[in-house]
């Protein structure tokens, strides 16, 4: 409840500032608000901002520099106790001490760790108070400055508006920040992984069994771990399942889109299009459940009926369900694109005596092709990144095979398997998940950019 209490207090203080600034502006002109350059509400908001900006700046610095500063202070206060340790040992010690200080430690700490944890706690609270004091005094100073600035001719509105527009810009910048954070976190952890396992082994190795890598850190672990982190079978499994999915979604989705846009009557279209979109709205966990409990056993029985040995986690079952999941991506994008092809092209084709299907195949589709291709690329990217269906219906063991009746694993399945549950955060096993994540991010990004490029490059302008 404490954070909530602080929040309420802060809100009340903010409200008080707004009312005070407003009251001051009104009082300065003796109630005749037409004499004010900006309306009273803007003066109130101005006073609030005057207090908020310095305080918020301090808080941002605190959030970014606070832990680092605490770390420095702890190292300085421990002094020579740390002297015999090398850099790596020191890092491990400090990390575990900060965990203990936060009450998340595991096991019994050694005396040195306990000392460091105490230092963390005391230095942490010192830094806490320091920044708290700085933020409060910044707010007070800002409020005083704003209070003195408020005058009948003071242009409060431009200041307030500029601040708000800056905030809006910051919200837009958050999208960039998110992308940067994704890239940095994936790349940094991957670099740590590639220090343990060579990138060549990872990208071209044929054997993937991270569970058998031992967690040991040191020279002899390197050769052993290099052999079990070959990501090629995982990638092959992903591509196999994606290929099956696209083999279903591309024809079905495209034909659905053609039927909806060219043949279906308006009432039929009004019903069928939302029904197809329901497929897109169903959570992937539901597809996964269906794939694992209904489709996979069915595929297995079908296979056995014709004398094939089918794994109970066959790539076919996962790919089938995933294909159905991405039908609406293909169909609704293609539908929009096909409808955007101008009617004059169809009329011209019909005037030459072509049947409807000939018009579609020889005139409409070629005109819509760039859009359709980019829709397919987006669907592929979606299939590669899809997680829950394959987690529930595909296998865990990495088989390098093209046989759709065997169990294969995918990049996303491996990420989930490696990271669910407790992990030691510096083992090659855990870090390999981030390398896989980087691979996944790069591949899907390439497909997305390619899709965008194709659309912009080959877009036909009919106007």
């Amino acid at each position: 409840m404490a954070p909530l209490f602080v929040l309420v207090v802060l809100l009340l203080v903010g409200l008080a500032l707004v009312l005070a600034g407003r009251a001051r502006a009104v009082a300065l002109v003796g109630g005749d608000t037409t004499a004010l350059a900006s309306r009273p509400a803007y003066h109130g908001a101005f006073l609030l901002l005057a207090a908020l900006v310095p305080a918020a700046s301090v808080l941002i610095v605190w959030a970014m520099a606070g832990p680092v500063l605490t770390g420095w202070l702890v190292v300085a206060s421990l002094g020579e106790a740390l002297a015999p340790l090398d850099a790596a040992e020191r890092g491990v010690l400090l990390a575990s001490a900060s965990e203990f200080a936060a009450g998340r430690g595991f096991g019994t700490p050694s005396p040195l760790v306990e000392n460091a944890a105490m230092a963390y706690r005391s230095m942490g609270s010192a830094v806490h108070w320091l920044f708290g004091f700085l933020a409060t005094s910044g707010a007070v100073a800002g409020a005083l400055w704003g209070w003195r600035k408020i005058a009948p001719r003071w242009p409060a509105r431009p200041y307030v508006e500029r601040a708000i527009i800056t905030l809006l810009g910051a919200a837009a910048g958050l999208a960039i920040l998110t992308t940067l954070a994704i890239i940095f976190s994936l790349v940094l952890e991957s670099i740590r992984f590639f220090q343990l396992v060579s990138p060549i082994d990872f990208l071209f190795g044929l054997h993937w069994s991270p569970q058998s890598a031992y967690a040991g850190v040191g020279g002899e672990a390197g050769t052993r771990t290099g052999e079990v982190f070959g990501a090629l079978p995982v990638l092959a499994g992903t591509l196999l399942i994606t290929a099956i999915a696209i083999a279903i979604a591309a024809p079905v989705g495209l034909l659905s889109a053609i039927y909806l846009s060219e043949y279906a009557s308006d009432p039929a279209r009004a019903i069928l299009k939302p029904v197809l979109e329901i497929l897109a709205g169903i959570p992937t966990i539901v597809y996964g459940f269906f794939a694992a409990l209904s489709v996979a056993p069915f595929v297995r029985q079908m296979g056995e009926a014709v004398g094939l040995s089918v794994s109970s986690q066959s790539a076919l079952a996962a790919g089938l369900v995933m294909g159905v999941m991405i039908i609406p991506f293909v169909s609704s994008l293609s539908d929009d694109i096909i409808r955007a092809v101008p009617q004059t092209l169809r009329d011209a084709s019909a005037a030459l005596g072509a049947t409807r299907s000939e018009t579609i195949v020889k005139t409409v589709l070629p005109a819509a092709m760039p859009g359709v291709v980019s829709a397919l690329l987006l669907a592929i990217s979606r299939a590669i990144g899809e997680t829950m269906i394959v987690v529930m219906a595909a296998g865990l063991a990495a088989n390098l095979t093209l046989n759709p009746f065997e169990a294969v694993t995918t990049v996303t399945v491996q990420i989930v398997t490696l990271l669910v549950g407790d992990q030691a955060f510096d083992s090659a096993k855990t870090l390999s998940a981030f390398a896989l994540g980087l691979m996944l991010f790069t591949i899907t990004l390439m497909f997305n950019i390619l899709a965008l490029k194709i659309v912009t490059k080959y877009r036909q302008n009919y106007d």
Partner: protein
Amino acid sequence: MTDARNGDDFATIHTRPAARKRLARRYRAERRFRFFGAAAIFLSVGFLALLLGSIVLKALPAFTHNFAALEFDLSAPLEASDPATADYDAIVRNALRDRFPEVAGRTLRRELSALLSSAAPVYLARQFQARPAGTGFTVPLSDTADLYLKGLLARSRTIVATGPAKWTTSGERGALETVTAPDLRAIENAFTGQGGQDGQRPSILIEIAGGVLKIGQLDANIPGGVWLARPRETGNAAEPGQWRIRIFDTPQAKRKLSDRQIVWLDRLVANGTVRPALNTIFFTRGASREPEMAGIWGAVVGSALALVVTLALAFPLGVGAAIYMHEFARPGRWSRFVEVNINNLAAVPSIIFGLLGLAVLLNVFGLHRSAPYVGGIVLALMTLPTIIIAARVALGAVPGSIRQAALAVGASPLQTVFHHVLPRAMPAIMTGTIIGMARALGETAPLLMIGMVAFIVDIPGGFADPATVLPVQIFMWADFPEAAFGYRSAAAILVLLVFLLAMNGAALLVRARFERARS
């Protein structure tokens, strides 16, 4: 007209066999093409129906549960100063034993107790403490007993006997005499049908004169065995149609429910002690290792908490970003970069956002593992592009004349946006936001990464309490080996789909009202 050949050609252009054939072929191709299109739609719609149908069928059994209304002797907790200290285990155990006084011996009694949920004492204690003066308390059956009564476990087939039979009793054992040939053959077929070893044989239960005889041997065409329930004392003959042969094809050893337990359950149902009722446990409780005590309420609360955080972050940030990009950003390299960035972010696989949450939120900032607010932040980052894109489209749909009119009467650009443009765009923004929230509600993968997959019994009480969410709960239940969890998983899916339906319905409603207001 002078050239007769030409005229002939004109008249016969569609009557020449080759042309007619060609035309017919083209029309066939047309019909074929159209058929393929319709078939594709039919395939998608059919799959949707199959998916929903199979889940509904699988979910229905989980919405009811069988409860036993026994006569509990509650004098001990009534007299005790603190009713919580009473031995409810013994109360439940004795209440069940009173119904079956003939059951003796440790093993058999334990088998009997296994009919009730192991959480039955706790369940009884809670009811009693809620209303100590109450009567008619019920306790839940165990998951296997419940599944049997729903016909989902230990299925049997029943053959009504066509001939008469006489029974004999000697101690625990019994036998059937003077059984006519067709009935005997039915018993024989089942008896010798599969294997022959005792544990592997189908169970054959003869229901005769209120008793149940389990056939253990077939000597000289006289089926004999053990009485699992004693027959009436009077008489020793049953008329045709008065006795039945029940065959359980799954051998007892391969079932979670023994033949004896089945007989006991049938008796409890016959005398009205056990009745199905709405499975309130499922809707009101958190996770549990016992399927019959597991509920979705904890996950629903967790989902709600996470979504509140998601909405509180993603809505203002998303709308703010859209306003900036659409109304204030100067067109140029930078704003194009931001736009491309947001489009790409919308297509980043959701699991990547989970990795971001794990690496940055948990490991760098040290936020709580499994906490709904962390889940909410991750989902907000994921939903943000959706909301931004929807809001930009909505802002773009507001006619420029509105802006110009506002600016003309002296409003600042910011006032124009907030007083005039945004209110007009709001319904469409809200539609987009609701759809984004619906997607966040159904998202599983990123939440697995930040530890919301933990087994949490308590209902989360705040944003920082460890919690799980509805889709993750479904995922966990689907993985458990007990069959009853599979049904609960499907039921939880149904609950999730109902929520999604409600949200999408709300989005449609907002859109419809908006369109009416505009016209």
